């Protein structure tokens, strides 16, 4: 029997599992193939929704569903934590002590946040990368009555690259609506020499920052927080006073990937082929989603477009059929909505060779994001779009 083991039940792992159960239905039914997902919580979380807990009255209960309810009945689900991958014996060890052998391995364990790496983060800074943090940020914004709001990035790469810009735009719009804009300053700090990594997006966002009176600070790599003086300091020697501090926490890949020698420390991002999505030249190990080292957004959209490539390659390996080169090579395709505030948004659509050309911000793209959030559960995880 061919054993296909998928680590992680997020966007990437779930779509790969459902696509494989469709492509290999007969082989699974005839017990020639087994597809198994290992997920540490057993719950699939729609992480892009967290920002809407802060800014859109979203409820945490709407952002999580049991993984079992999203995957085909042919797919096995193991709820456990992975502690090690041994690619010489082709096996995965779990926290329970169980060992799972594999013939084809898919690594889709996402990224983890590490706010503890910045001293005083927990008491001084807010973020929107968990439901609880997003709720806490809502409380802080409700209590804010004027002053300085600083939005900064405490480590790259991080999940959803547009998010800190979006949050700055949404905060500014909210302050205006609440009559607090005249009493407030909004600062957006970018670790690089412009507002956003992709030049065309930076060119779109910079005039919007100017128009909204949001002060852009470039080359601001967060180094320390001084709670006594309420200042955040950069590696470059700049410091900004804050009354409310929003920081994107440092991110890393899963620790077991470093422990298993598959990903280098300290980042923990898997060295992944840009097109085949194979890890470190191994023909039987694939990665997708946040956990790769690809020069692309760490976002569900990336995993969404990578999943069919992984499924195509594994299905071809099982069936012995030749690879469909077009379907089996990732082009770097990503597509995501970008909130501008005031009910407007734009769209980023790009691949390795074609940078995005965001359309003029408008209401339609904001509504597109709202619609996507509402229909996500019925479309994306099931591999229907």
């Amino acid at each position, binding site marked *: 029997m061919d054993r296909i083991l998928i680590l992680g039940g997020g966007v990437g792992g779930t779509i790969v599992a459902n696509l494989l159960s469709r492509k290999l239905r007969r082989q699974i039914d005839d017990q020639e193939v087994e597809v198994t997902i290992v997920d540490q919580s057993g719950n699939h979380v729609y992480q892009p929704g967290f920002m809407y807990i802060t800014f859109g009255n979203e409820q945490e209960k709407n952002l999580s569903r049991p993984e079992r309810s999203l995957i085909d009945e042919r797919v096995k689900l193991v709820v456990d934590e992975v502690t090690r991958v041994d690619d010489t014996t082709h096996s995965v060890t779990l926290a329970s002590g169980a060992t799972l052998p594999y013939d084809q391995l898919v690594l889709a364990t996402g990224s983890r946040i590490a706010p503890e790496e910045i001293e005083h983060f927990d008491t001084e800074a807010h973020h929107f990368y968990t439901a609880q943090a997003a709720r806490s940020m809502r409380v802080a914004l409700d209590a804010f009555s004027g002053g300085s709001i600083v939005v900064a990035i405490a480590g*790259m*790469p991080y999940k959803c690259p547009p998010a800190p810009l979006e949050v700055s735009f949404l905060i500014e719009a909210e302050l205006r609506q609440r009559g607090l804009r005249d009493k407030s300053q909004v600062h957006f700090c970018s*670790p*690089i*020499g412009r507002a956003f*990594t992709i030049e065309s997006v930076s060119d779109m966002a910079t005039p919007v920052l100017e128009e909204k009176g949001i002060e852009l600070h*470039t*080359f601001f*790599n967060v180094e320390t927080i001084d709670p006594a003086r309420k200042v955040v300091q950069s*590696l*470059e*020697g700049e410091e900004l006073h804050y009354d409310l501090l929003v920081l994107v926490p440092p991110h890393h890949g899963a620790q077991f990937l470093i422990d298993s020698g598959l990903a280098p420390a300290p980042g923990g991002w898997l060295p992944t082929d840009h097109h085949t999505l194979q890890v470190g030249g191994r023909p039987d190990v694939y990665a997708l989603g946040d956990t790769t080292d690809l*020069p692309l957004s760490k976002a569900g959209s990336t995993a969404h477009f990578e999943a069919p490539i992984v499924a195509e390659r594994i299905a071809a390996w099982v069936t012995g059929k030749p690879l469909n080169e077009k379907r089996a090579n990732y082009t770097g395709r990503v597509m995501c909505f970008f909130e501008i505030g005031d009910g407007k948004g734009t769209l980023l659509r790009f691949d390795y060779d074609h940078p995005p050309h965001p359309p003029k911000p408008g209401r339609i793209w904001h509504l597109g994001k709202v619609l996507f959030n509402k229909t996500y559960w019925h479309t994306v995880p099931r591999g229907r779009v």
Partner: protein
Amino acid sequence: MLTDQPTMDQPTINRTIDARGSFCPGPLMELIRAIRESAVGTVIAVRSSDRGSRIDIPKWVEKAGHRLVGLTEVDGYDEIVIEKLH
């Protein structure tokens, strides 16, 4: 091409970061990590095939108050050498 022979302007390179194949902001972020980890006086060479690095990295070095020792094009990539000053 830069050499490892120390001169007044070209001190010995203590650490080389090969960021070839990485795209913006990868080479700059690799340099920032190296600067954080290194002692004052360390000379770091960054190799980058991303054309944006030859603009971004010198700008960052100036803002952060370090010293740009040199920038050389070598076989299709740039080698940018920086000394950590503080």
